């Protein structure tokens, strides 16, 4: 699945290849269990991509394949223009990664943790210290840089782990459930950080099962459970079923008209709320003219008729089903 260029932000000039992340038939099998099946993706540079799916959907497995940590059983993928399996070192250098658990050295100080990773990402000693300092300062951890990470709160660790993902200034960043387990303030702080990165034009692959978060941050959304069920821009995801749900605003109370509406065979569901009728129809083309004519003929005063946005949650639940989680 590919998505139009309407999602691509101002492009980084140093980019490689057409897409930041591109996958074809990516599949990973663990024993008898298929974690990821036939995943096709094409994510333009500068996009915040929300990868949504329930627990055990295979999100982390996908992230691990795309960051060259584990090999796919079948299929290929390119990240920053480099092929996974062939150019793993190059991919690792191009990609910043926030793993599911922060994974910091508890016995080292915040500063030592960052400098260590920065050095592994091939920064010189000076650059490493400099980068570590600037992130510690911007994440309000500078005062505590000498404390060992073992004594840090969950939110502080998460900030530090995000800083680690950014040290080498990677164009592509994978964030695996960045706000899970954080209190609202810490989660907000992390989301603000994602917005900053987005403004800098970085490509972000954000794994989450928090739909509100995805709505707030993402340009492009993939709904995934072992297979990619849907890939679209957030706008289109929301509009996806708009034509099927309409709101009819009347001059007076809506409840008396409910039986009339429900009696129509093309109407799947109807709810009355004060002066509004919320109607779900099988097909707009056929149902709407009939619905409106029937109401007018019955004497209803229609003030206006409008399509209703489907929330991301609706789209998600429709695709994933309400079970699970």
């Amino acid at each position, binding site marked *: 699945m590919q998505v139009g260029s309407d999602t691509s932000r101002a492009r980084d000039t140093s980019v490689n290849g057409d897409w930041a992340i591109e996958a074809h038939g990516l599949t990973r099998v*663990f024993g008898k269990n298929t974690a990821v099946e036939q995943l096709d993706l094409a994510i333009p540079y500068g996009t915040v991509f929300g990868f949504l799916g329930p627990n055990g959907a295979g999100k982390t497995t996908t992230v*691990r394949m795309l*960051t060259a*940590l*584990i*090999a796919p059983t079948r299929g290929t993928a390119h990240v920053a223009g480099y092929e996974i399996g062939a150019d793993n*070192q190059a991919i*690792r*250098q191009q*990609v910043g*990664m926030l*793993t599911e*658990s*922060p*994974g*910091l*050295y*508890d*016995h*080292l100080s915040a500063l*030592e943790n960052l400098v*260590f*990773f920065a*050095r*592994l*990402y*091939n920064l010189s000693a000076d650059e490493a210290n400099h980068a570590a300092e600037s992130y510690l300062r911007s994440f309000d951890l500078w005062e505590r840089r000498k404390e*060992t990470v073992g004594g840090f709160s969950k939110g502080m660790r998460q900030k530090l*782990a995000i800083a*680690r993902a950014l040290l080498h200034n990677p164009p592509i960043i994978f964030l695996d459930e960045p706000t899970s387990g954080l209190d609202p303030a810490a989660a907000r702080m992390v989301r603000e950080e994602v917005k900053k990165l987005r403004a800098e034009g970085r490509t972000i692959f954000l794994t989450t099962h928090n739909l509100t978060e995805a709505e707030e941050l993402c340009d492009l959304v993939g709904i995934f459970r072992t297979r990619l069920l849907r890939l679209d821009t957030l706008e289109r995801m929301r509009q996806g079923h708009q034509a099927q749900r309409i709101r009819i605003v009347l001059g007076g109370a809506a409840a008396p008209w409910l039986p009339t509406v429900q009696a129509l065979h093309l109407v799947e569901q109807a709810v009355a709320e004060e002066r509004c009728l919320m109607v779900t129809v099988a097909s707009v083309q056929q149902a709407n003219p009939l619905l409106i004519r029937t109401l007018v003929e019955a004497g209803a005063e229609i003030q206006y008729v409008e399509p209703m946005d489907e929330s991301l949650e609706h789209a998600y639940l429709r695709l994933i089903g309400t079970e699970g989680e």
Partner: protein
Amino acid sequence: MHHMLTLCYKEWLELRHHRTLVAGLLIPPFMLTMLPIVTVWLSGFAPPGDMAEEMNRTLTDPALAQLSGLELGQAMIGQQFGLLFMMLPLIIPNVISSYSIVGEKTNRTLEPLLATPISTSALLLGKAFTAMVPAVGITWVCGSIFIISMARFTVSPAVFTAIVSPAWLLLLIIAAPLMSLISILLTLAISSRVNDPRSAQQIVAVLIIPVMLFFFAQTVGFVSLNIVMVMLLVLALAIIAACCLWLVVRLFQRETILTRWR
């Protein structure tokens, strides 16, 4: 190269806070150094030992041929403990290297570590080097303390040269680092497959068996160290170390380490 050193530096920083690990690291060498020194010193006052055993020993080791009863007793005790030293390069690194991969797993730092552009060989060598430097360093320091004490506490220069023989020095200087390397590589290989450092530590029990066998063989006068034997041993150790390296590189698959562990 700089990845490897960066990793070593990190490991040593971590060791600062691992008090129990450091204690585990220092207690065996302390014991294995103090015990021989005290025993050799005390044996300077002891009556000569069992003649039958002495006869046997003088046949296998010419350095013992001209010694008096007292000298012989002390030289033999010194030689026995000199051999026990060879357990140090096996035991010391094991404590560190058994934690090195398992520790990254339990800390959950393995995944971010493997996500960096560090090569697998730099990772392995860094881990090995981290354990080898203290192992060889401590062995040599303890060896030097032992040599100095022998010079001081032996009853005659002949006893000193019988204990601190060229063969023993060769063992200390060249065989010890090779032995520590073998111990480390095997521990790393196991440590990448298990989730508990104790499982990885058990390998050391297997590794010290040859040292113990030699120790008992020498006790009963069956063999004694000589320079040719040690040179052959060094050669054999070098070959074994190379095999271990090959094995570890083969066993150490980044992906397997990550996915086998849940």
